[in-house]
């Protein structure tokens, strides 16, 4: 299943648009496509991993997004808008997937084999972040948006600035940086000290 599906960016864009317009069923297709890409990336990571040689996150993320986002050269406005939708969808996909896995249900990867759960070596508990983020957004909406774009969308601070400006928020790079620092501290505190 995994190997036979290729992600045509057109395909993904189409589905994103459908989803944005309210078609929930597009999410399942998207999940499959995204995970196909993730698996490809994972395979690449395995091939290129060498002891002591850490992979460069930024490069990898760009690699991934090149496949997912529409081709460069497309109108700024569209692209930025695309990012915010994409970030939101990614969040949704990962959270749903994590929920299913922890409930032991079947995911597109197949049912979870009890006792075979591998513990994430690095990385947060997606569900924890998601839940803390929802609470965070109540009092700090713009900052939550920054988190979503950066953490789930994988955008750089500059790209975040562009994206938010396109959707009407007037922010500077400095603002985004400070927003990110604050949010990160807040989430770290919330996840580290569950109340």
């Amino acid at each position, binding site marked *: 299943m995994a190997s036979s599906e290729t992600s045509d960016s057109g395909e993904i864009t189409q589905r994103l648009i459908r989803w944005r317009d309210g078609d929930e069923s597009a999410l399942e297709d998207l999940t499959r496509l995204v995970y196909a890409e993730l698996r490809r990336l994972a395979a690449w*990571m395995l091939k290129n991993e060498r002891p002591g040689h850490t992979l460069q996150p930024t490069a990898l993320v760009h690699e991934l997004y090149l496949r997912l986002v529409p081709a460069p050269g497309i109108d700024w406005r569209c692209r930025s808008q695309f990012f915010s939708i994409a970030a939101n969808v990614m969040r949704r996909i990962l959270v749903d997937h994590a929920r299913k896995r922890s409930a032991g249900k*079947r995911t597109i990867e197949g049912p979870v084999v009890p006792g075979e759960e591998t513990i*994430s070596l690095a990385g*947060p508990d997606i569900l924890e972040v998601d839940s803390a983020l929802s609470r965070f957004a109540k009092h700090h909406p713009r*900052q939550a948006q920054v988190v979503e774009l950066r953490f789930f969308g994988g955008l750089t601070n500059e790209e975040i600035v562009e994206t938010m400006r396109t959707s009407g928020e007037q922010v500077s790079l400095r603002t985004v940086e400070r927003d990110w*620092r*604050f949010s990160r501290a807040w989430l*770290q*505190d919330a996840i580290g000290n569950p*109340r």
Partner: protein
Amino acid sequence: MQLAIRDDDIDPRELRDLFDAACELEDGARRDFLEEHCVGRTVLRERIEGLLSADTDAVADARWMVPALLCEAGRLAAEPELPFDRIGPYRVLSRIGAGGMGTVYLAERDYDGHIGRAAIKVIPRILADPENIDRFVRERHILARLNHPHIARMLDAGRTEDGVPWLAMEYVDGVPIEKFAKERGLQLKARLELFETICDAVMYAHRNLVVHRDLKPANILVTADGVVKLLDFGIAKLLSDTAAGGATSSAMMTPAYASPEQIAGGAITTSSDVYSLGVILYELISGEKCTVPRKRLKGDIENVVSMALRQEPERRYASAGDLGEDARRALEGFPVRARQDSLGYRTLRLFARRPIEFALLAAMSFAVCIAALLAFQQYREAQRRFAEVRATANSFLFGIDDALAGLPGTTRARMLVAQRGQQYLDTLASDRSSDMALKHELASGYRRFGDILGQPFGPNLGDVDGAARDYSKAEALFASIASAGRADAGVYIEWGQVLTDQCQIAIRQSASEKAIAYGEKAVQVLEKAVAFNPGSRDAEVALLRGRQALVLASLTRSLSNGSLAAYQEAASDAAEALKTARLLAGRYPGDETIQKALAAACEYQVYTWYDLRRVTVTARTNSDEVLLTREEVNITRGLFDRSPDHYRRQYADAYTDLALTLASAGEAAGAETAARESLRRFEESAGADRDDLEAFRDVAVAHWSLARAMAAGNHWPEAAAEYEKVAADYERLGKTNPADRHDQAIIEANDWLGAWYLKHGERARALGLYRSNIRALTGLNGADAVEALALDEERLGDALAPADPAGAVERYRDAAAIWKRLGDAGPLLPVDADRPKEVERKLSAFK
């Protein structure tokens, strides 16, 4: 939630601004800044300080450096991928399991437009020998033939281009049976119905010459609709043949469910599957794991389980179908095939030993192993070997702690200690050295473990079969030392003691011929021990014990064998033992052990005389019998006075014996006094612990002796009242221990009361009692039980005769058939000599 409350009190913007400003500052400046801006607002200040602290952590925390998607990719990278997209004509969907001998995938395949699913088992290439793969593929035809609604079908097999062999089986979407039973809260009946279905399926496969070899709950799935399916039939054999080398054979089975011969690497037959089914049945009924030794189940089902779990394959149920059927019969209250041999006999209680405290047990085991280790150490200089041994010893020492930590209950822990120790000895024994000192140590070690295993663990009876195995190993070692001509007196004594232990174990296993063989050998060896070492008290006491074990074996055999010669032999064995006991008592006056043995010897002699008198119809009591019994009372009184706690029971028991002897001698008054004395003493002990069944049984026997005393004095109503008590007592005992349903006492009580009711015109009650006896006795094959059955059939016939001639005829016919069978096997006992003629006479009266 506290957080919400806090932030609700705080202006978000202010919080952010203050944080932003503060995090740019150094420690000192930071403190000042916060003091300045958070005057009087401790909540705000604490919140900011909390965030600042988190900020420090977050900067270093990897989770914020890597976006979520990447983390997810990393997680996928860490998880093993599906190595296959396709296997044969199947599309692989996902992995559903991984085990010792391969991985299982869920796959699907298009069949003319509709999709069929399969579970595909693949064995790792690393295990597969190329030559065998062809055979693997060929032999699949045998398995593919199995076509049964409760067996998951084998669909296909083959190998991939890489040469990896695979098997496709019907995919069963279900849960393992024990999980199903638990989740659905299935009652006993439903569980047994499932079990019978399983046995049916196994039978079918056996008829088609396929043995499962790896039956366990994980291989028995139940779908949501309640349909049972057995998986992996015969796969174990196919795959083990395919796998290279012998290394995998141990991975091919699950030890908890594997039969002893499987574990030992011996021949596997349909009986091995029966064994596994026995384990599964036990776990299904009790909800607990089947440990060794295991907790006994209540009722006939325990007999069924025991028979399935016999060590020797040929002693188990001959077929899975028999097992399933017997399980159902146990449920419905019908007599089962697996039964004790003869009437319960109270003397066997004499062998109940005092349980060893666990701490002592561990210390004993450890000591045994250290002794063996030292012997080994002396024997072998080689460093390498010593290191190995020391590693084993260490793991014994330290591994135990880890294992104990997680175990539920000390019984498992005890078992583990014993198991480890035995494994350790086995390791040393496999060395095949000819060093005598080492052999001696090993033999002593095995003997010790036999003792440990034979101990009752709480309410259990101990692992008798396991003890027998250890004793055998010990005995073989002693015998080999002796045959090498290297035995000293010590070796002969120990050898004789092991043989004595084996005799006692065989008695508990109801194998009386084997018991006699061991007993006779024990006496032979111990006589040599005494000859080699005249004046050695140890040797003489060991010989006495050996003789006594032989007497018991003889006694047991006479009951189940039923020939006059057997009874005579038992009486003369008892006389020999008594003679030896007196000699020793004379030589070591006041010695407690010897006194105890003398009391027992008196008791045994009286029993054997009594039995002999009964079967030869010699009415008058031998006056020596009364004398001997009084001697028994005196001796035990002496012991009791010295240590009341240890000899309370023996002393009270002696009074019971006295009551019975006086009753049969016609001294009714004396009998009654003695019986009341024993009853009083036993009731005192039993009162303390309501749940102690042994104490309760003592009281029951005391009631019985009082009943006999009353009858001897012609106090009929009182005798009837006592017999009623006996019946009630044994009904309660029989609920938990099947052997008590056919104890000598209850059979006699029912017979006596039957006659009593008939005299008083209460026919229905009498019929009920005779029928109850007949039910309890049917299926037993000890001679004494068969004899009692014939007598009760005749009694029932007599009772039916006036009102139901047809019924009476049926009973007389049954009785006649039994006498014929007994008569064909050998001459009838004098006491029974007239019975066949009598029954014939009664039958002809109806023609």
